[in-house]
């Protein structure tokens, strides 16, 4: 059990994250939550265009991506990132709405998964990556 937890923690430590949300307060909260669980938050972006630039510059392993953004929506950003094939990050979409509200859009976007903002945690992200 301890070994399993150690492995889990190790995998947190090695994962870099870009947080994309137009609310600075959400980005700040998500940053401290994920960093407290060992993730390496290497950048933040406030809209879809900036997110695409940040992915190209920073090469995060994970992008935590809000669905609702001021320019491109999260699904569009996820779709563009999925075109990078194997070299792209794992995209986790998030929203204050539940996944069922978006029907098949999450799967169709190419995102790895979806975490409601209400359930945001490092463990929730990790469970979608395994």
């Amino acid at each position, binding site marked *: 059990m301890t070994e399993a937890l150690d492995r889990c923690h190790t995998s947190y430590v090695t994962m870099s994250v870009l947080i994309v*949300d137009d*609310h*600075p*307060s*959400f980005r*700040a*909260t998500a940053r*401290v*939550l994920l960093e*407290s669980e060992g993730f390496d938050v290497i950048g933040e972006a406030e809209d879809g265009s900036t997110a695409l630039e940040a992915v190209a510059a920073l090469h995060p392993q994970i992008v935590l991506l809000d669905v609702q953004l001021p320019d491109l929506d999260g699904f569009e950003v996820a779709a563009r990132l999925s075109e990078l094939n194997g070299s792209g990050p794992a995209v986790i979409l998030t929203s*204050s*709405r539940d996944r069922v509200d978006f029907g098949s859009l999450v799967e169709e976007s190419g995102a790895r998964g979806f975490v*409601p*903002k*209400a*359930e*945001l*945690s490092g463990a929730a992200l990790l469970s979608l990556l395994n």
Partner: protein
Amino acid sequence: MSPPGRFQEVAERQLVLFREDEAELLGEVEEALDAYNGASRDEAEERYGEFVDLVDAGREVLLDMRDGFAASLDEEAAEEYRLVFDDLVRKRFPRFGLELD
């Protein structure tokens, strides 16, 4: 109907961070309360004022934390989150929760 436990972990973690980040302030609050409890009649009002000022400072940090995150949610989710956050503050930091609503 929301599933139980929504926002619970987020709010719990926020309060863990509050405890860590504001450890100095939390210590000062307790010291100020001790000073008030031990104050003479002449000093009591001033000591109480110092205690209240520190409690207000802590409450302000909590309100910023709560309302900042709530601003990133839609209206219904924000209300749900505020209720969870306020309830936890009342349990974990009762001195700061009295007027949080």
